[in-house]
């Protein structure tokens, strides 16, 4: 059987024919859908470089079989910015020097977007570090990452308040 799945990928509907059920979401994005922003570090759930949002929740795309995702909504790093306007988490990463080589960065940013949506860490640095522990940074840019996530969390709290008003 060759499962065929339909996805909403970064806001656009996509029908994808899968000739092989072994394909992970990570390989689907990088090798077949020309979206190489999502990175492959370990391919085993141990580094977080492959983090994307599935139905709004952050997951490791390397351990997700694409065949399971019929009907899912996927957001990758390519889908965050609105044209030239960076997503607030992307902007906060730049302002806080939250990367060096940049390899882990798409995964860090997607994980931070997921963490902020979970709304559990708040602006507490220890909780942010714990919440971001599924993303390893070989360059050890952790200090900047933590501050960037705090700044973006502050920004999103502001946005929420404005929405409510």
């Amino acid at each position, binding site marked *: 059987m060759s499962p065929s799945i339909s996805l909403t990928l970064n806001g656009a509907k996509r029908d994808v024919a899968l000739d092989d059920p072994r394909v992970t979401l990570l390989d689907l994005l990088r090798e077949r859908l020309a979206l190489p922003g999502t990175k492959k570090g370990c391919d085993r759930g141990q580094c977080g470089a492959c983090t994307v949002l599935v139905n709004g*929740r952050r997951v490791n795309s390397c351990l997700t079989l694409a065949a399971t995702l019929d009907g899912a909504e996927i957001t990758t790093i390519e889908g965050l910015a609105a044209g030239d306007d960076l997503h607030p988490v992307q902007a906060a990463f730049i302002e806080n020097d939250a990367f060096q080589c940049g390899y882990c960065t798409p995964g860090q940013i997607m994980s931070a977007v997921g963490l902020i949506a979970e709304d559990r860490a708040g602006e507490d640095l220890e909780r942010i570090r714990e919440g971001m*522990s599924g993303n390893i940074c070989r360059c050890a840019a952790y200090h900047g990452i933590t501050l960037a996530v705090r700044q973006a969390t502050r920004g999103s709290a502001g946005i929420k308040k404005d929405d409510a008003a």
Partner: protein
Amino acid sequence: MKRFEFIQPTSLDEALAAWEPGAAWLGGGTNLVDLMKTGAMQPVKVIDITRLPGLAEIETLAEGGVRIGALVRNSDLANDADIASRFPMVSEALLAGASGQLRNAATVGGNLMQRTRCAYFQDPQAACNRRDPGAGCDAREAGAGQAVLGWSEICIATNPSDFCVPLAALDAIVEVRGPDGAREIPMAEFHLLPGDTPERETALSPGELIVALRLPPEAEGFAANARYLKVRDRTSYAFAMTSAAAALRIENGRIAEARLALGAVAATPWRVTEAEALLAGQTPDAALFARAAEAALAGATPSGDNAWKIDLARRTAIRALEMAAAGTPAQMPALPASPFGSTAGDLAHA
């Protein structure tokens, strides 16, 4: 990865009918897909159970206690306000496991069924009696973090689950459905020690599926004094070297009833009823906890170069009992289950 047939049933009956020897249920895939990549698991058919209806609910039961569907994600269970207040060490253990991303995918059933992290089990190039009965055990030569309780000459691997440790302490019940109907398995009988058959890891029969987990009403009696403590190589996103779930029901300054289970020391979560009996009726203090921990590890023996683990497990048990006696914190600590955890965040490492 070996090729497999993939199916996605939408009813429990359809899923049970689809099972055949060599098939595997797929929950979040965080363990199965990983082991399919290394080649340690090679199912001929993968049955995705995540579309089965009605298995993702958390229900409070009329007679007390709670029923948790097998497809509830680890993060949703851990962050459920009711679970966190009634069964705090269950939440704390879940939040101490894996990462935010992995917990979003991992299911209750998959967590119970996750395989050992023994590196030789994961690597098909290594000899492993658990993966390939009769092949031998490369961990005997080189394994360091292996079991100190309940191990056999055939296999010295440990069960890596954090979640299962408080479940064992709280007498959870596993609800199962299979070709021959429904049955229930007490947590104490769910995981099996290796003996001569390390390939038999749980009491599930072929084709059986976990549909839910129940925590009995009595488990709620410990909410005020229950902690999970996990000692690991790094503060977060690492498996336990040792862990302990400790729960006390304290009445008038005395321990009316105690529960204690250890993690990462055996092929099963390790409940220590001898230590519990010793704690019951006593006034909580350091000397009592030391005696209880002594009793908990009385039968431990190194399975290799890991005598350190016996001492570490003893000290983990003592600290977990001290933390439980001090009371369940009002808010989940910033670093769940950590010996370095603070309830409020702090700037120590900022």
